[in-house]
């Protein structure tokens, strides 16, 4: 027991500080992905909700692809594909520089693609929950389309989409673990390094699981609070 505590302590003897740095990377990656995923997801949902069939179809192709591919494969496609594509472009332009894609950025891009395609479905079903009269009311007051969307629709949309988006956030937090495979030093990678060096795999992978669990618990309580806040204007029945 004492031995395990020494291994987990901060300082030269333990791995606590290394793993803590990994946790920071995990949380940063998830937080950095979130705004991109949300914005792209919202735009895709708008496209799916539009009356233009070609736009609808284009958006549906996007979601079909990124919802159907395994997250790990999307990650590899982005990581290797972007690297090859960029280097080909540079070669075409006549320069002789070799690019290497940062694993953090690759992870962010891949996770944004996946997150946005799922988020677009969440937004879309929230759109269906808003009666058409809300749009018409906005236009009748002389608001422009953009203003109606921003001031009338979006606040209601967020409230309706929040439970689904909360679930997606929890999934995103878990999926960041995959980025450790392409070398990002996140929680899982730091713990597997510690496990290999100390030959205590059960301890360190157990700790990694517990860290993810704690992150999930913190997130759910935070999400519950946000949900309560978003419902503050609702009539109590």
């Amino acid at each position, binding site marked *: 027991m004492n031995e395990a505590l020494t291994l987990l302590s901060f300082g030269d003897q333990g791995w606590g500080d290394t793993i803590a740095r990994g946790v920071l990377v995990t949380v940063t990656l998830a937080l950095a992905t979130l705004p991109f995923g949300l914005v792209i997801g919202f735009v895709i949902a708008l*496209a799916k909700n*539009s009356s*233009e*069939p*070609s*736009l*609808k*179809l*284009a*958006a549906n*192709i996007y979601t*079909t*692809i990124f*919802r*159907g*591919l*395994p*997250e*790990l*494969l999307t990650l*590899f*496609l982005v990581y*290797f*594909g972007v690297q*090859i594509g960029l280097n080909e472009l540079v070669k075409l332009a006549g320069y002789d520089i070799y690019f290497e894609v940062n694993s953090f950025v690759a992870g962010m891009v891949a996770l944004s693609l996946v997150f946005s395609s799922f988020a677009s479905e969440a937004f879309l079903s929230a759109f269906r929950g808003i009666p058409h009269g809300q749009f018409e009311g906005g236009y009748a007051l002389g608001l422009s389309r953009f203003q109606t969307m921003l001031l009338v629709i979006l606040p209601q949309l967020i409230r309706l989409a929040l439970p689904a988006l909360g679930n997606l956030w*929890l999934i995103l937090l*878990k*999926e*960041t*673990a*995959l980025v*450790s*495979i392409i070398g990002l030093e996140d929680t*899982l990678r730091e713990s*597997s390094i510690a*496990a290999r060096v100390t030959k*205590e*795999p*059960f*301890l360190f*992978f*157990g700790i*990694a*699981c517990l860290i*993810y*669990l704690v992150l*999930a*618990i913190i997130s759910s309580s935070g999400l519950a609070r946000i949900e309560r806040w978003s419902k503050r204007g609702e009539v109590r029945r």
Partner: protein
Amino acid sequence: MIAPNPRTGLKPPPLAKRPWTATKITGHVLMAFWAISGVYLLTYLLGNLEKPILELALPFLSGEWEVYASDRIATHKFDSFLGRYGDKYISGFLVTLKIVGLSLLFGAALSIPIAAARSSKWKILSRPAYAYVYFFRGTPLLAQTFLIYYGFGSFRPELQSIGLWWFFRDAFYCIIFAFSLNTSAYQAEILRGAVQNISRGQWEGAQALGLSKPVTFFKIILPQALMVALRPYGNEIILMIKGSAIAAIITIYDLMGETRRAYSRTYDFQAYIWAAVIYLMIVETLRRVWDRIEARLTRHLIR
């Protein structure tokens, strides 16, 4: 053109014109993008199929075409990616199916007692079941896999003494074990949610008819619950197929594993593109088949 009404001579109003608005232009540009990338991908991938296609077509060709085809096969240096790795992809696909199928079956069997314990009114049963479900749903599948595959190595002497080491030494058994535990937690929640969704009146009605509890459960509650659970079960299968790519990380040559091996040998990016095409086809087929099954099984319900 629509003919005028013969009696009144009135013409219907013309169809509303759909002008080229910004939305329409954007939609067409995006569709053009998808179409171009699709065509590019197809030619890129089919270039690899040229030799087998030519060979297959050879007996049916005649004259100039036959000369052309045999000439092309003889002189062109075909070193196609698919020729070398096609069989590997098929075997990888079968391994993926095996992993997913076995894990789903074991998970389904395991989920029944967990769901029962979770909805039990005894806290001594429901608390541990809740913790189990929370743990497996709250942590990444990859971390769980590592915990089981590498972590159980810490207990090698103990496992050897009880004669279970052969199980935890093998990556394939470990992945089945890890995936079964993971999916059992999700399936238990699906099952519990579906059973709780059935209204109390169903239980009361059965009781009024004098049916025993097990008969009520299996003949009245469960069929209705499974109907509700159909969609989440389909989603769980798709999640499992996508999640099974993780098996490649612990040295199993499933579809993803074969892909990684092919890529590390050739540095040919189409390795990943073929994998993407195969995964997309599996998931899309399953989704469509599942929609059909659902429509068929719920055809008596008013929607």
